[in-house]
Each structure stands twice: as structure tokens, then as C-alpha cells.
């Protein structure tokens, strides 16, 4: 360890690089986030509690959590199919499909928002087909879910893909030799390996969905108690100059996000260990 330290310090720039990192990190990220906590601490606990549990705020958590949950579940199912097909089969246009998976990362959310709204509006390409069936998408929670499905596509696909790639064919081979049918091999041999990345992808998509704003505001209709998501409610409170209320709600959202981040990091460490030992 001691010799290690001496060997490492042969390179220059430790103080400068870490000093600059910590300074810049503090100025841009840590101090602003700390300001949020300090501002909320200005409220008494009953005031805080009353704000974050008022009927309209509770309804917004419900909308945000349920739509994000449902969208993430849809992405787990279809994300697995997309990752499977991309890793294991050969078909024309495969490279393009692989590239398209990243579009939700690169396409600005406002662009996705207006495009989805016009597709699912009652006179839009898909809305027109669903309207006679009595299904309304734009300006309903279903519309919010559609936007969050778009946003979440890459998360599940990109966490499952590398794991599927690494899985040894030998494992499946021996299962097949032992007489297992394909479906049984999948369930008993492959699926257990795929569960950790699927949960990670789910949690990433879910966390992103809870905080998402740009793609949702256009399609949601923003009706209090019905289609108002928590991030939008924060903006509404800000526009009414209710700074402490906006801050209190933001803190709750932040705590939910950090809890998910902790879960995701734990899961990823677990997956990486399994991958390395495989």
C-alpha cells in the first residue's frame, strides 16, 4: 500500500485536478442543491408536512408515480424483446434499429412532446384510430404514460444488451443437452441472469419518468388532481411566487430520486460482480 502510494504520486497534477473538480462540483451542483435543503429548513415541520401532503400535491405524486411505474413496466417487456432480437438475430436494418434506440437520449424532450401530442390527439394518426373505440390518449394519464414509454426505451435495452451478450452459450448448451426445451432453458437458465439488469433498467426508466417534464407537459393537459405531474406542480407554485411550497415539494421529489439512485447503484454493483465472475 505504501509503495503503491509512492508509485502513484510519480504523476503530477493530483492537487490541481482534484481541487478544481471539488471547486467546480461545489459551485455548480452541491451548493445549489444544499440551498434547496436550507430553504426548506426555513419551514416549520407542520408547515412542511401540510404542503407536501395537501390534496393537490398528493394527487400529483399519484399521477407521476403510477404513470412512471406503468411506462417502466411496458419498457421492461418490450425492452427485453428489442435487446434479445438485437443481440441474437440477424435481420435487415438491424444497425438502424440499434441506433434508433438512442433517439430518446438525443432528441430534445420538447420535440418529443409536441410530436407525441399530435400523434395521439383525437385527429392525429393514432388518436384517430383510438377515438371511435372511446380511448382518449392526449390530455389523459394514458398520454403521460405514452410520453414516458418513449423516454424510457433506451434504459432497459441498454442495460440488458451487454448482459445478454456476455452470457455464455455453454450454459444454454448444457441445458439443451440435458434435454430442456427452449422455453424451459430461457426460464430456468437465462431469465435468472437477466433479472438484475431488467430491474436496473426498470429503476432507471422509473426514476427518469418521475422527474420528466418536457415530453409530458404538452400531452398531459395539466389538469389539477387528474393529469398534473409533480414537476409541473413545482413550476406552477413557482409562477405563483409560492417559493417555499415549490421548494418543499421539490425536496420530496429529490428524496425519491436519491433513494432510487441508491437502489440502482447497488443493483449495478451486483450485476457487475456477477458478470465478472461469469
Amino acid at each position, binding site marked *: 500500500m505504501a509503495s503503491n502510494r509512492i508509485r502513484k504520486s510519480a504523476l503530477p497534477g493530483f492537487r490541481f*485536478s482534484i481541487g478544481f473538480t471539488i471547486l467546480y462540483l461545489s459551485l*455548480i*451542483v452541491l451548493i445549489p*442543491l444544499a440551498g434547496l435543503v436550507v430553504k426548506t429548513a426555513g419551514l416549520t415541520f407542520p408547515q412542511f408536512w401540510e404542503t407536501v401532503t395537501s390534496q393537490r400535491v398528493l394527487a400529483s405524486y399519484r399521477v407521476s408515480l403510477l404513470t412512471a411505474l406503468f411506462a417502466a413496466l411496458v419498457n421492461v417487456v418490450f425492452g427485453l424483446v428489442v435487446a434479445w432480437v438485437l443481440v441474437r438475430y440477424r435481420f435487415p436494418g438491424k444497425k438502424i434499429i440499434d441506433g434508433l434506440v438512442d433517439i430518446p437520449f438525443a432528441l430534445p424532450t420538447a420535440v418529443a412532446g409536441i*410530436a407525441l401530442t399530435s400523434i395521439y390527439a383525437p385527429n392525429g394518426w393514432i388518436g384517430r384510430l383510438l377515438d371511435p373505440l372511446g380511448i382518449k390518449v392526449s390530455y389523459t394519464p394514458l398520454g403521460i404514460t405514452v410520453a414516458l414509454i418513449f423516454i424510457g426505451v433506451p*434504459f432497459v435495452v441498454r*442495460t440488458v444488451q451487454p448482459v445478454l451478450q456476455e452470457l455464455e452459450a455453454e450454459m444454454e448448451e448444457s441445458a439443451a443437452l440435458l434435454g430442456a426445451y427452449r422455453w424451459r432453458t430461457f426460464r430456468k437458465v437465462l431469465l435468472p441472469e437477466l433479472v438484475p439488469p431488467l430491474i436496473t433498467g426498470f429503476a432507471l426508466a422509473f426514476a427518469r419518468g418521475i*422527474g420528466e417534464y418536457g415530453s409530458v407537459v404538452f400531452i398531459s393537459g395539466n389538469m389539477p388532481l387528474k393529469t398534473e405531474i409533480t414537476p409541473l406542480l413545482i413550476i406552477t407554485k413557482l409562477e405563483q411566487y409560492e417559493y417555499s411550497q415549490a421548494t418543499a415539494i421539490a425536496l420530496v421529489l429529490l428524496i425519491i*430520486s436519491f433513494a432510487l439512485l441508491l437502489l440502482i447503484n447497488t443493483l449495478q454493483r451486483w450485476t457487475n460482480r456477477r458478470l465478472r465472475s461469469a
Partner: protein
Amino acid sequence: MAGAVTTVASLSSEARPKHLTEARPVRYLLIAIALLFIGVVIVLPMITVLSEAFRKGWSAYMDAIRDPDALAALRLTLLTAAIAVPLNTIFGVAAAWGITKFKFRGKNLLITFIDLPFSVSPVISGLVYILLFGAQGFFGPWLIGHDVKIVFAIPGIVLATMFVTFPFVARELLPLMEAQGVQDEEAAVSLGAKGWRTFWKVTLPNIKWGLLYGIILCNARAMGEFGAVSVVSGHIRGETNTLPLHIEILYNEYQYTASFAVASLLMLLAIITLVIKGLIEGKLASSKRGH
């Protein structure tokens, strides 16, 4: 987030023996489901942007793009990216150098802090600067006294953009430089090279593809960010509107064609970003293998 993106070399189904792949109908069914899902969820919105943008023809499209407010929004978007991206790039390189070339306590905590902006809602990323620099904020009274405007003005937009794009470059460089180790740099230093020279001549050539990868992802997000910027922008046409905010204003004024025309510019940026990303990925994979 961007760190989750991995290059995958394809393993063809032909390479897999028959008993290790699915029956043909099952294969075709799964491919059909995947294509339909990507088609409906991702391709359809992209086609919609183009079809709505050109609904009233080429000249209406060009009018929307050449509109003075649209050009002002484009200038502000470029200016914001021109400040935020280089600063976050310098930070990313410094952080990756310090974290991967040295051993110290608290390294994991530092990495967690760097990742924080990825898990914060964009709305909160804007809100924190209002709490600091707004009229009711911590520095509000002082700023008003000195007639300095940060939020609801351009500096606020730049700060909020820096916050949301903060981790991109560092995230790409950390695993790459970790994998490359310190041998090359140590060799250079032992041969008498100075610190900066070692960095320019040894480290930079090794990390250039990863660095470029991080920069283009950072840039795409910087130019496209909507939520955080929306909170801190004063929404003043021609002054504090970026391209994504301009899209929103046009849309809310029922100028759909113009709104989608501007949106098509940002979609083009996204496509170019992904094409470059695809080209870099091959080089990146070989620079990781080379060490």
C-alpha cells in the same frame, strides 16, 4: 445514463447452432414485435415532426426558420452550448485525471456526487438557481443592489444548462481512463516529460475518442434541454428564448407548422449526434482493447 450505452458486437443467429436458437416462427414473431415497438414509439414521432414541419410547403418552412425570433433563439442556444460544453469538458478531464490516476479516500463519494445531476428532475435543476439568485433568493438582495440579473436572464440559462450536462464528459472518461491505467503516463514522466506535456502527448491521444463521445452527448443535451431552462428563462421572445423554448411558445400559440419546423432542426441535431456517436463507438472499442 450515457454510461449505460454500450457497444455491442453482433453475434449472428447463423453462428448459433439450431438447438440454441428459437424456432423460425418464434424468431420472426419476436423480430416483428421489436420492429413494431420501435416503429410506433420512436420512428412515428420522428416522421410526424417532418410531416408537420412541411405541411404548408417549403417556403412556410423556411419562413419559420428564418423568423427573427427563431434566429435569436438559435443564437442563444449556440451561445449557451458554447459556454457550458467547454467548461464541462475541462471539468470532466480534470475530474477523470484526478480520480483515475491517483488513489485517495472518498473517491466513490466523489463519483456519486458527479452523477447527481443525472438523477435530479430538470425542473429542480432550474429551481435551485432561482433559490440562490432569484429576488427572494439567498443572493437576491445583493444582486438587485448591484443591478446584476442572473435568473430570468441569460446567465441563469447557462447555469441551468451546465447543471444538467455536468456529468456527461466525466462519465465517459472515467471508465476509459480507469481501464487504460497509468503505465503510459509513468513511462513519459520517468523519461523526463513535464506534467502538461505528458497530458497532451500521451493521455490525450489515448482518450480522444472517449472525450469526443462525451462532448457530443453533452452538446446534444445542452442544445436540447427544456425543463431546467424553462424554469430560469424569463420567456422573453428574442432575448431569453432558446430553441426548445421557442418551440413551446409557437406551439402554445397554435403556430404548429412553425413549431414543428424549428423542432425539425433539433431533430436533425439529434440524428447527426447519433451518427457521429455510432462512428466513434467502433474506434472507442478498439482504444479500450488496446490497453
